[in-house]
């Protein structure tokens, strides 16, 4: 595609030129195209996105851009860059067309150094792409805990090769940093607060989640597998070096969504997912659970999932939880944990629902969830709870003995240490 649209739009060419666009002499360093805020940002920015040739960098100047429509980006290998997260703000508060603020369909895209705010839907979506990088950017909603906020801040779905680095998401009414049905993922040095879920890795394979901070969400870090999705039974999330604390905001999720079921006060929740490794995280002052591993049965006690999606593995097994520091969790649980664990306060910091896949033969221990070397703030062993959701009758054998689960598993190697 030739960047010759100015020839088609003499009026816009004038407008864009006033903004310094397309004029090589005034292009900032490293930019192949440039637009500054104008009185028709919808057109000017979308024109630039459409005119970018594969491999080019499109720059957005300092100031606030205002959009009423979704922006789409389909070129491959391009970089979209603002001046900085503080200086370049893309405001979608008047948007009434499109499900995302920015919808990326090109491969190998990097988006960085800008803020996207107040999208009615998702912030920055990248669907069915190879290699997407979100870097040094913010997605935020300025209204607190408002179900009119969009669902996901950064939203790669069905992507292969995801990097989320130095990203901040505030105010998402589902998951702030969300990665769904994707493979080969790195989420690092990012911050999520005041979302329902801070960081969520869903139905995905081979994610590394490291050195992030999640606080003031309903749940800090969720590693989920859900039924009836195309990409099923995700595995192998490695989470380390994360600070997950004070995730005690009442759940304000949209009723009917899975995230709306997450108890207030959840540090890390592994739902239905297998073969994950959680190590060297600091998890404190979450009022319900520090780290809880659970089957999908907690959401669907009638096990409708068995008919809805026969291939779905609903059980959280073969996870490895070690060397975490957990302190001050479980002191003031939400209703569901309060019912599940009526007698122990604080609720122990580590937990497993106790449900095992009926078709899995665990005589070798290959499906056992292992807990090892987790400590509380004083260096003493962290407390543990076998919740016994699947006991006959349920909860009959609820106990705090983690002896049977004190074991280790082969560590997951971080491909980019």
């Amino acid at each position: 595609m030739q960047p010759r649209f100015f020839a088609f739009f003499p009026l816009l060419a004038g407008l864009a030129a006033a903004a310094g666009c397309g004029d090589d002499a005034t292009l900032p360093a490293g930019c192949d195209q440039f637009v500054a805020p104008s009185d028709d940002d919808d057109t000017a920015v979308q024109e630039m996105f459409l005119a970018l040739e594969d491999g080019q960098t499109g720059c957005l100047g300092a100031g606030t851009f205002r959009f009423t429509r979704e922006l789409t980006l389909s070129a491959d290998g391009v970089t979209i860059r603002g001046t900085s997260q503080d200086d370049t703000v893309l405001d979608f508060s008047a948007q009434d067309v499109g499900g995302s603020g920015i919808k990326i369909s090109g491969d190998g895209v990097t988006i960085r150094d800008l803020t996207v705010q107040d999208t009615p839907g998702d912030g920055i979506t990248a669907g069915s792409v190879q290699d997407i990088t979100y870097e040094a950017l913010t997605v935020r909603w300025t209204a607190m805990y408002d179900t009119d906020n969009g669902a996901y801040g950064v939203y790669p779905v069905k992507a292969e090769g995801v990097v989320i680095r130095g990203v901040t998401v505030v105010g998402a009414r589902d998951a702030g940093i969300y990665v769904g049905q994707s493979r080969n993922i790195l989420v690092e040095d990012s911050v999520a607060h005041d979302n329902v879920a801070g960081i969520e890795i869903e139905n995905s394979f081979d994610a590394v989640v490291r050195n992030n901070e999640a606080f003031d969400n309903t749940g800090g870090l969720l590693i989920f597998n859900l039924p009836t999705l195309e990409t099923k039974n995700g595995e192998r999330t490695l989470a380390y070096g994360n600070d997950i604390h004070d995730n005690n905001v009442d759940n304000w999720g949209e009723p009917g969504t899975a995230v709306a079921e997450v108890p207030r006060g959840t540090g890390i929740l592994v739902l239905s997912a297998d073969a994950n490794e959680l190590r060297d995280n600091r998890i404190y002052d979450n009022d319900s659970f520090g780290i809880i591993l659970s089957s999908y049965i907690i959401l669907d006690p009638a096990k409708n999932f068995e008919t809805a999606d026969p291939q779905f593995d609903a059980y959280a097994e073969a996870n490895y939880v070690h060397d975490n520091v957990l302190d001050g969790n479980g002191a003031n649980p939400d209703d569901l944990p309060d019912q599940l664990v009526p007698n122990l306060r604080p609720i122990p910091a580590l937990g497993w629902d106790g449900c095992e896949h009926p078709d899995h033969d665990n005589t070798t221990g290959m499906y056992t969830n292992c807990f090892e070397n987790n400590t509380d703030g004083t260096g003493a062993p962290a407390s543990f709870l076998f919740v016994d959701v699947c006991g006959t009758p349920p909860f009959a054998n609820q106990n705090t003995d983690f002896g049977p689960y004190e074991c280790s598993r082969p560590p997951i190697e971080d491909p980019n240490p």
Partner: protein
Amino acid sequence: MTARAQVAGGVFAALLTGCSGSSPADPGEIPYDRLSDYGFFVGPLSDLEPAQGVVPYRVVSPLWADFAGKARFLVLPEGGRATFDAAETWSFPSGTIVVKNFFFDVDRRDEGGKARIVETRLLVREAGEGWVPYTYVWDEDQTEAYFHAAGDRLTIAYIDAQGNDAEQEYIVPNTDECDSCHARDDRTRLLGLATPQVNFEGLLGDGTTGNQLERLADAGVFDGPLPPVQDLPRFSDPFGPDPLEARARSYLHANCSHCHRPGGDAAQAGLDFTAFDPDPLPAKLGVCKEPAAAGPGTGGREYDVVPGAPDESILVYRMESTDPEIRMPELPIRIPHAEGVALVRAWIAGLDGPGCGGP
């Protein structure tokens, strides 16, 4: 963007000489600046009177587009022919252009009366590229339409069914957004020029009546004879006399299946609204299917379709919504389609159930 359309007939002859780009008569390469540069129409442009070789057609189950009417044309390159397929993969030579005009009745009490044309969309078969989408927006005077890549938002004034002055917004998609519907497995596809969509009897694109598929064949579109049309698949007119289920399936095919099918933009949601299979797995149509987590807009309802209970079905909730985050179809349609919603409601109400209940 190298291919230049070589439209049959004399209209284009002028365009085929001189390639310098400096001659004022030479519109350059496709996409041309102006719709008139293509020479699709003779006489005043807004009459949409097709030039020789420009073949009008209709589909039995059109896409709802916020009250817009459509006028569709197929333009084959000189001497070019299409190869027929009994399902949906007709193949066309490079240089083929499909033209779809969007217009609004000026007075909604007078359907088919005076209309204002707002947009003309093209899919151009380009050598080495496949189908490439372009769109043109008409001027106020209805004398010309101009190439428009970035999309637009137009205000349409009209007289409503009660005779009052009214206004609505109309969204022109940007050319990336065309592919949110037209692309499947990363390739841009035709959606309406498919056997079951044109194998119908009734009012045809040229204003006569008959079978649209046979009429296309008569116009010399295909490179060989057709099988007997009664042996070929056909979709129902969603608002015609056929049984409810067939009409609802046809409606969902035309309005939803381009995204909701394997390889489509919404494949991750796990639905398949194509109407080719008369007896699909119920969950493919959303029956007792729990919504995917990726979809926030559930309205607190549990399943996409609850047999016998349209008011408990997410599908209905999303078709009725005007919230851009929730509404289906996603883009760029803004106004819920009352008749379409009523049809889908009736279909759901009549499904055997009741309910999805657990044990």
